[in-house]
């Protein structure tokens, strides 16, 4: 710092960092409050300062939120619903991603009469609000005998997600030179061989983007979860809501906070693990041969 001077440039920089720090603080403050509160006992919450660190940290609230808190009439914590969410999210993400990759491949490189219109119509699916399809979808699920089932929720999420995944893959594949397809055709590769040997190996970044996107969307979904699930098949978001709204005696803020963090943890983990690929995938341009 010996050579630091108050030049115009340095003052500007300092100002930028100050603003960034300020906003980082605003964004992180709730997380801080949630985390510290979840480690306090209920006496300390009532008497102490919201921003203070816990005096005697305890994982009691976390244990209770996971295994014994009451969500409505059941008192088994979030655990069963967490696994419900897992059982919904994994198949829904995998199926919608694979279907999207395939759709994108066809719409980008095997254009047919009306394929542009079809793509436009699919895009339209991205803009349909959840609420609009609630009733017709309920009717459809009833007809299929999938009402109140995990399979039904998977189906809903796949249908709703395909519009987005198709858009992602189609736009990514448009950037891959068509000459690669032509070269492969002359090499004797067919429709599926080209997809498997040339497009799939090029798709890692867009797979990451799509998986993160779909995972976050489906894990965090509340509306479809609350409408189409039965009592035993509710996803964790619905259970969290029930947990917070069920009060036996006083409100247990520490349990509520721990439960909210548990519900958010998987999406957080996905970002931490794959986040850098997310940005890379979104900005990935054409593949140079």
């Amino acid at each position, binding site marked *: 710092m010996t050579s630091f001077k108050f030049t115009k440039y340095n003052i500007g920089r300092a100002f930028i960092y100050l603003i960034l720090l300020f906003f980082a603080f605003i964004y992180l403050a709730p997380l801080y409050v949630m985390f510290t509160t979840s480690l306090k006992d209920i006496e300390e919450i009532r008497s102490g300062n919201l921003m203070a660190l816990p005096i005697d940290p305890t994982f009691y609230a976390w244990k209770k939120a996971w295994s014994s808190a009451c969500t409505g009439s059941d008192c088994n914590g979030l655990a069963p619903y967490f696994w419900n969410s897992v059982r919904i999210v994994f198949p829904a993400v995998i199926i919608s991603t694979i279907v999207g990759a395939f759709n994108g491949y066809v719409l980008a490189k095997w254009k047919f009469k009306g394929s542009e219109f079809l793509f436009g119509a699919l895009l339209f699916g991205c803009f349909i609000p959840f609420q609009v399809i609630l009733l017709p979808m309920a009717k459809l699920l009833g007809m299929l005998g999938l009402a109140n089932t995990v399979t039904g929720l998977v189906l809903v999420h796949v249908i709703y997600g395909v519009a987005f995944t198709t858009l992602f893959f189609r736009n990514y594949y448009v950037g891959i030179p068509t000459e690669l397809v032509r070269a492969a055709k002359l*090499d004797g590769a067919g429709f599926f061989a080209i997809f498997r040997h040339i497009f799939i190996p090029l798709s890692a970044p867009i797979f990451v983007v799509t998986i993160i996107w779909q995972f976050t969307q489906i894990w965090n979904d509340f509306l479809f979860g609350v409408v189409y699930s039965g009592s035993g098949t509710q996803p964790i978001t619905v259970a969290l809501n029930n947990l917070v709204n069920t009060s036996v005696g006083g409100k247990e803020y520490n349990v509520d906070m721990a439960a909210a963090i548990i519900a958010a943890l998987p999406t957080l983990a996905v970002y931490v693990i794959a986040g850098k690929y997310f940005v890379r995938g979104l900005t990935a341009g054409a593949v140079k*041969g």
Partner: protein
Amino acid sequence: MGSISLNGINKSFGSTEVLKNINLDIKDGEFLILIGPSGCGKSTLMNLIAGLEELNAGEIVIDGKDVSEESPKDRDIAMVFQSYALYPTMNVARNICFGLEMNKVPKSEQESILKRVSELLQIDHLLDRKPGQLSGGQRQRVAMGRALARSPKVFLFDEPLSNLDAKLRVEMRTEIKKLHKRIGTTMVYVTHDQIEAMTLADRIAVLRDGELQQIGTPYEIYNDPISHFVADFMGSPGMNFIECIVKDENLIIESGGKKYELLIPCTDALNNSNLDVVLLGIRPEMLTEVQPLAVNNKFIQKVKFDVEVIEPMGADTVAIGQWNDSEVMVRLSPESGNSAGNGFDLQVDTSKAILFDPSSGLRIR
């Protein structure tokens, strides 16, 4: 082996006709160049031969078999693309063998083909690399290796050298020619570079606006062009075109402030055409400084010439001046010592001069 017949080919994209009634016979083992300015349909014609586009009318016969309706993989054709189109996630070895793999060639056979091809193209030390780790010239070789591996009936080249720098382009050009000599397979090669066309071709087909203008050996195309367009397209520096008034079977030109009557061949044709004004086409190498030992020939004439610009090109020097208000390029030896702003005696050899109808652009003959 690999003869190709194109019979009455028509191709439109929407309402634009890209190719109009193309008829072309390519002999087995021939090196045919398709040349023309951009947008003339040459790449489309190549894609039609490969089966990457569908015909609107006509038929394509390869090796005596009508393949118009067949898919690219059944035509036994290999193609080298302008962008090389190497598979970016596969290493060089797999790029070369991909076609064999798709055609279910046994592994051991693939190995021996890979060895042969990579040694032929001197890329055997690159087999484990990905295309992204190769230089332009190396990619070009790999792309050729991929085409060679399948031993197809016909090779198609779509402007394969246009992404290389000038020096490498000349090197690869020679290599392609050597390759053709060695394997003797039919090659169809698209380019817009007339030097590539002249040096490589057995025959050149000149395309313009979707129509075949002329087909012939490089010598015929260069010395006996059918139209103003073909004459203008081939040669660098290009042919000179001068509008001249006809007088008693001679052409009147004004050069260096004086008027001359230029004696020309093909006077019968000129008489038959009944034109008062014709377009004289004469190549720059027919206009030189006076050669002391020139053979006695009535078509060798002398005119005064005023030099406006001098462009030294190393092996020779191009001087630019005016005839009848048209720019004229002459080819001098670098030792001639002429400089801009000076006049000198120019030796004009009209024995290879040709005449065009100025309105239609067609040859008068």
